[in-house]
C-alpha cells in the first residue's frame, strides 16, 4: 500500500515504502498512465547505509493527494522516461547529481553542469559543452544563442536546428545561474534559509517563500491564523498580477505593438508598488515568514491598497483591450507556438502553460491550502495552447486575482500576530505546493533525527516547462522564438537553483 499525503502535511520517513527498483518503476508508470503527475522525483543520501535513495511524489490532481514511494539504487536502475516522458528532465537531474544511470534514457546530458554530489573525484563538464542534438543535411544550419542575451535577461544557451527560417528542433541548455542552493539548505533551517528561499527565483519570491513556510509550519505543527493566511494569498496574487501584466506588455513588444508594451511596463510597476505597500519591497522580500508574515497591515492601509488596485485595473483593462482589438496583434498570436494538450500532459507541464493547452490543473483548486482552502477556486483554462491562449489566459487570471484581493476587503481583520514556530518533526518528509504565477511550486523537505534538513528539494514550475517551450518551437519560424519564449516566460535561476 503506497501512502498518500496532502499538501503541506508530513509523514514519518519510516512510513514511506522502500520498493525494489523494478516495482517502484512499475508503480510510477502505472499511476502516471492513470492520470497522476510526477510532482517530484529525486535522489538523496540521508541514510548512511544506502548509496542513493530515489523518492517519487505522484500528484493525483482530482483528489488532492500525493503518493510517496522510494527505492534504493547503487549504480543504475531501469529508466522511466521511455514509458513516461515527464520523467525525462528529472532523470537527467538524478544522473547529474548522483551519477546514477537510468538505463534506457536516451538523452543523458547534464542540465546544470556541476560536479556530482556523491563522488569527489568526478568534475563537472565545462558549461555549455555537451553532445547537442544535431540535424544533418546540406541545407540545414544551426543557430546558437547565449548565454549572454541581447536584453536584460538571465543567461541560458539555445541551439536551433533550422532549415531556412523553419526550426526543426530547439535544444535548451541551462545551468549558468547554478548557485547550489539545495546543497546549502542541508542542515537548516538557519538564518540563511529564508534569503535562499526569497532568491530561488526573484520574481517568485512570495511563491517560493510561502511554499517553504507551509512546509516548516507543517513539520513544526504550527497553525497560522486565517487573517495572516489571507495576507499571504494577497501577496501571492499581487505577484501574479505584476508578472502577468508585465508579460502581456512584453508580448505586445515582441510583435512590435508599442502602445500596450509601454502602458503595461508602467502598470506592472504599479502592481509591484502595491506589494511594496505590504512589506516595503517591490518583490515581496522580507514579508512571508514561518508562522505568519513579518509586517502588519491595518484596515485603512488595506483599503488604500484596494482603491489603488481598482484604479490600476481600469488602466490595465484599457491597455489590454487595445491588444485584443488590434487584428495585427491577434494574427501574430494565433497559431504561433502551439503545444497540444496531449504533449502538455505527456511532458508533465504545470501552471499557466498547461492550462493554456487545456490541462485543467491548478494547485489553488486541486491542492488548496491557506486562504485558498476557504472557498472553491474556479480554475480557468485555454483551448489551443498557442501564444494567444497563453496571453489571453494571463488576462483572465489578472481579472481573477484582482477580484480575489478586493473580495478580501469585507472579511479583513487587522493586527494579526505572527506565531513562533518550534522545532521540526525529526525523521520525516513534508511536501508543500503553491500555485505561483508560473505554476506549481513544489518543495519537499526531509528531516534527520535532530529535526534538521537532511535534504531539501525544490521544483520550480520552470523545471517542468522548459521542455514544453522546446516542443512549442518545432516547425515555427525562428523569428517567432522571442514571442514563444515570452509566452512561457520561464525562470532560469528557478531551474538552475
Amino acid at each position, binding site marked *: 500500500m503506497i501512502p498518500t499525503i496532502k499538501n503541506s502535511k508530513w509523514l514519518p520517513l519510516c512510513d514511506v515504502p522502500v520498493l525494489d527498483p523494478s516495482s517502484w518503476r512499475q508503480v510510477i508508470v502505472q499511476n502516471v498512465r492513470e492520470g497522476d503527475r510526477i510532482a517530484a522525483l529525486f535522489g538523496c543520501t540521508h541514510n548512511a547505509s544506502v548509496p542513493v535513495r530515489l523518492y517519487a511524489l505522484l500528484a493525483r490532481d482530482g483528489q488532492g493527494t500525493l503518493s510517496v514511494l522510494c527505492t534504493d539504487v547503487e549504480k543504475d536502475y531501469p529508466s522511466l522516461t521511455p514509458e513516461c516522458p515527464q520523467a525525462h528532465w528529472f532523470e537527467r537531474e538524478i544522473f547529474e547529481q548522483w551519477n546514477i544511470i537510468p538505463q534506457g534514457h536516451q538523452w543523458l546530458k547534464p542540465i546544470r553542469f556541476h560536479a556530482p554530489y556523491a563522488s569527489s573525484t568526478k568534475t563537472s563538464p565545462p558549461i555549455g559543452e555537451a553532445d547537442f542534438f544535431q540535424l544533418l543535411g546540406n541545407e540545414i544550419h544551426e543557430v546558437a544563442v547565449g548565454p549572454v542575451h541581447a536584453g536584460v535577461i538571465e543567461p541560458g544557451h539555445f541551439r536551433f536546428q533550422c532549415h531556412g527560417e523553419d526550426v526543426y528542433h530547439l535544444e535548451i541548455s541551462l545551468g549558468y545561474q547554478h548557485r547550489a542552493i539545495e546543497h546549502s539548505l542541508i542542515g537548516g533551517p538557519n538564518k540563511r534559509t529564508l534569503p535562499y528561499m526569497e532568491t530561488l527565483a526573484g520574481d517568485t519570491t512570495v511563491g517560493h517563500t510561502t511554499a517553504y513556510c507551509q512546509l516548516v509550519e507543517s513539520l513544526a505543527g504550527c497553525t497560522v491564523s486565517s487573517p495572516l493566511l489571507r495576507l499571504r494569498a494577497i501577496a501571492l496574487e499581487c505577484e501574479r498580477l505584476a508578472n502577468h501584466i508585465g508579460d502581456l506588455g512584453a508580448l505586445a513588444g515582441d510583435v512590435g505593438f508599442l502602445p500596450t508594451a509601454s502602458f503595461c511596463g508602467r502598470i*506592472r510597476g504599479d502592481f509591484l508598488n502595491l506589494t511594496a505597500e505590504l512589506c516595503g519591497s517591490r518583490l515581496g*522580500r522580507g514579508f512571508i515568514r514561518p508562522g505568519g508574515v513579518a509586517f502588519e497591515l491595518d484596515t485603512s492601509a488595506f483599503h488604500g491598497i484596494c482603491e489603488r488596485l481598482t484604479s490600476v485595473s481600469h488602466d490595465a483593462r484599457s491597455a489590454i483591450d487595445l491588444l485584443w482589438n*488590434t487584428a495585427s496583434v491577434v494574427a501574430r498570436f494565433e497559431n504561433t507556438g502551439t503545444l497540444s494538450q496531449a504533449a502538455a500532459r505527456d511532458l508533465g507541464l504545470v501552471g499557466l502553460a498547461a492550462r493554456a493547452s487545456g490541462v485543467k490543473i491548478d494547485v489553488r483548486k486541486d491542492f488548496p491550502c491557506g486562504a485558498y482552502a476557504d472557498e472553491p477556486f474556479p480554475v480557468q483554462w485555454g483551448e489551443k495552447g498557442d501564444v494567444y491562449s497563453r496571453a489571453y489566459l494571463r488576462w483572465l487570471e489578472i481579472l481573477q486575482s484582482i477580484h480575489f484581493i478586493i473580495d478580501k476587503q469585507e472579511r479583513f481583520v487587522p493586527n494579526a500576530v505572527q506565531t513562533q514556530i518550534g522545532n521540526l518533526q525529526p525523521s520525516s518528509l513534508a511536501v508543500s505546493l503553491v500555485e505561483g504565477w508560473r505554476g506549481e511550486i513544489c518543495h519537499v523537505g526531509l528531516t534527520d533525527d535532530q529535526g534538521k534538513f537532511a535534504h531539501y528539494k525544490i521544483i520550480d514550475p520552470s523545471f517542468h516547462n522548459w521542455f514544453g517551450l522546446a516542443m512549442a518551437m518545432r516547425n515555427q519560424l525562428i523569428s517567432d522564438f522571442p514571442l514563444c519564449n515570452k509566452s512561457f516566460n520561464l525562470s532560469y535561476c528557478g531551474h538552475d537553483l
Partner: protein
Amino acid sequence: MIKSLWTRLKQHHRTIAFPKQEPRLPEKFRGLPSIVQSRCPKHCSECVTSCPTDAITMKDKQPHWDLGRCLFCPECSRACPHGAVLFTDDYRMATRTRDNLVIGPKEYGLAQPLEDQRRKLFGKSFKLRVVSAGGCNGCEVETNVLETIVFDIGRFGIGVVASPRHADGLIITGPVTHNMKSALEKTYRAVPDPKVVIAVGACAISGGPYIDSPVANNGVGNLLSVDLYIPGCPPHPLTILDGLLRLLGRRYSTSRR
C-alpha cells in the same frame, strides 16, 4: 487607430519628475539603515547575530554596517530589543568604492562623478550592456524597469544596448557563478576601452545571500575593477538611477530636500 489614440490619452503622462522632484516611496520602504545611538546599549549584539549575511559587525562597541552585504531584510530591526535599528526612506546609497559602503562613524560617501576623460565621453550618452551572472533575476527586474515610461532613462542619454561592442560599460548582477565566469570575462573584453563597470545588488558586490558558495564567486570585485557599487537586494530602481546620475556628474546634492 482612433482607439489607440483614445487609450493613449486615457493612460496619461506617467514619467516621474525625478530628479527635479523627490519621489514618494512606500511607507515601509527600507532604505539606508541607521542606528539610533541613544537607544543602542552598545553591549548587546542581537542585530549582529540576526543578520543572515553577517553584514553587521561590532567595532569599538559600535555596530558597523556593510551595505555591500546587506539584504535589506527586516531581521535586524525586528531582532533589536531596543528599537535602535531603523531603515530610513533614503534611497540614495550608490558609492564609488567598496569601503564607502560601510556605515560607521564616518559620513556615508555617496558616489562622486567619473574622472574628466570618461565623464566627457559618457556624460551625455551612456550605453550599457547588462550581464546577469548568477543571482535571482531580482536586480534584472529592477534594472529593466528603468527603461519603462515611469523612469525613462533615455531622457538622461542612458540606454541598454544589445551588444557589448556597442556599450560604454557593463552592469553586472549576480555573484558570478562559476558557470558564468568565462562568459562575463569574454563580454568584458568585448567592451571597447575606456569602459565602466557597475555592480548592482548585494550578490554582485559581495556574493549576497550566496557569500562563500562553493559554486560562485563572492561578487565581481575580485575579478574586475568596479566603478560604481549599487547596494540592495534588489536595489530600488531609484537607487540605481540615482547612482548612474551621480556617476555621470548629473546629480550632486547630499541632502534630500
